[in-house]
């Protein structure tokens, strides 16, 4: 394609380059952009760890203060007319904000710090709470890392699809097929060809064991993250004697068992054998 000059197909090459540029910006693995970012991250990693350490310390202090306030508000909040859930929202927002701040300081450094924190045992009066928060933090870090890995695979699929498209176009040209002249119809044809290439590349990747594993790992990490969030939320709901999903599950389970027993008894009364 690069050798084509003024033969009416330059716009196709330009389109392919445009797509490649977008993928580069999205951080295709091995691209110059990523390598540069990795070097910059390595240069400043010690500063970042220190910075994150400070942030974590601040977050920890805020967290402990939060629980102190929580205890006070538990006694006085309802009387003051404040929504009991408001405080829970504040806590979650604070945690999310802390995480976002830490994440922006550098993914790699954050991960190192999370690894360190996750290996420390929980102790003291707030042992149970801090353990729940720690597990949530670990789950989020794991999820983010896997999401990045999967995103990189998808970016590679798109990049390979462009390469396949490029060689198809070249092949057509070599076979003497008419050079496409610019027009919406031709653009659409190019688009359809790109979709075909994309699906072909993706089908190969999607059936591969590493992809199946990675996608499932991300799914499992998302489940752990959600479960961790549920633990935190349920703890909060219990503080206010509000029903939780776990309690509802328990009720539904009991109802199901009762229903089965009633059906068995009814069948026995009718003298039937259950089929």
């Amino acid at each position: 394609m690069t050798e084509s000059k003024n033969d009416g197909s330059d716009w196709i090459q330009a389109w392919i380059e445009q797509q490649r540029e977008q993928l580069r910006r999205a951080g295709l693995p091995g691209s110059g952009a990523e390598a540069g970012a990795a070097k910059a991250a390595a240069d400043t990693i010690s500063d970042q760890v220190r910075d994150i350490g400070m942030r974590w310390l601040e977050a920890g202090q805020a967290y402990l203060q939060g629980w102190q306030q929580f205890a006070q508000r538990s006694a006085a909040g309802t009387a003051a007319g404040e929504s009991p859930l408001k405080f829970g929202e504040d806590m979650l927002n604070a945690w999310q904000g802390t995480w976002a701040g830490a994440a922006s300081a550098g993914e790699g450094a954050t991960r190192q710090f999370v690894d360190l924190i996750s290996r420390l045992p929980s102790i003291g009066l707030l042992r149970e709470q801090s353990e729940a928060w720690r597990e949530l933090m670990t789950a989020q870090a794991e999820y983010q890392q896997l999401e990045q890995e999967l995103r990189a695979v998808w970016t590679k699929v798109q990049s390979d699809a462009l390469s396949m498209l490029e060689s198809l176009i070249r092949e057509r040209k070599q076979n003497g097929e008419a050079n496409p002249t610019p027009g919406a119809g031709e653009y659409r044809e190019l688009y359809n060809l790109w979709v075909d290439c994309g699906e072909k590349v993706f089908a190969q990747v999607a059936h591969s064991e590493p992809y199946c594993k990675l996608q499932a790992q991300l799914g499992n990490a998302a489940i752990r993250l959600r479960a961790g969030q549920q633990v935190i939320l349920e703890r909060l709901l219990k503080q206010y004697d509000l029903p939780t999903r776990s309690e509802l599950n328990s009720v539904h389970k009991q109802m199901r068992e009762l229903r089965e027993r009633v059906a068995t008894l009814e069948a026995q009364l009718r003298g039937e054998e259950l089929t």
Partner: protein
Amino acid sequence: MNDSTPGTSELAAVTGDFMRRMSQGLAALANAGEVAVGCSAKDAIYSEDKVTLYHYRPSEVVAPELRVRTPVLICYALVNRPYMMDLQTDRSLIRGLLQRGVDVYLIDWGYPDGADRYLALEDYVTRYLPHCVDFVRRASGCEQINLLGVCQGGSMSLCYAALYPQRLRNLITMVTPVDFHTPENLLTKWSRHVDVDALVAATGNVSGEALNALFVSLMPFRLNSQKYVDLLHQLNDPNTSGATLENFLRMEKWIFDSPDQAGEMFRQFLTLFVKQNRLKEGTLTIGGRPVDLKRIAVPVLNIYATQDHLVPPSSSKPLGQLISSSDYSTHEFRGGHIGIYVSGTAQREIPDKIAGWLRERDQS
């Protein structure tokens, strides 16, 4: 790439032209109204929890001597809604069957909610389905009826037929997975490493939206992008009729109108059928009773689609070797998982095949 790169100005022009046409298509799309689904008259005749059994009103134009005496009960999948079988007047398997003298009943599983998260395979196969079959038997006065299972509903129908063989006269399976471990089965490969126990523990029911995202990601370029670009282009074509847009919107409604899956049922189906392939291996038990497909001795018609990307033909075809029926037929439809219900060729081919096959076995 900058403005002096060869082809850049042409690309800008052609992209602009393309986008203009897309915008015109969008304007046409914005004028579209709501679409209705379902076209054949039906009556709700039985319900239990969220399950409803419907009876379609027989076609009055069919002479009594041409009617198939034994009714057909359609057991649809839990994923998506059963109105796919009767989407619109010119795309309706049910309408086609009624016009050929078949008496049609259909199970609508409803939309499970949080209270249904412990509904299990046992509930569907040994409670709801038998109750619906028995109701149809009583209502029609037929000791045995015909059962037509669709996709996952076909797998459940096979279980039912193995557990209650004496209540069926004929069994039809459509795009039904039997062997979940064939090489083409992408959904199985994707689910192999998923911790389904943890998934259901965390989510309760499994949302229809999550499943839709999964199905769309099987062919991400086509299903997330190309089909919408195609639509906008079609709308821009003066030869395109208004029906094209309505048909598209109706399909979109069906595709994304997905009930949540009862958590326990989903967990069991994914574990026992998809991951462990127990239906095919003969190791499945439901409510403590073994599901032995060899107990299926009634006539069976197995219909599959050659281009099915959800249930590949290789997943449906092994059925013949797993049952003991001496009257086993297959029908291969040239099309996909959805096309078998809504494509133009399917409208004549599939009802003709089913009604003819049933009629031949209705006389004996």
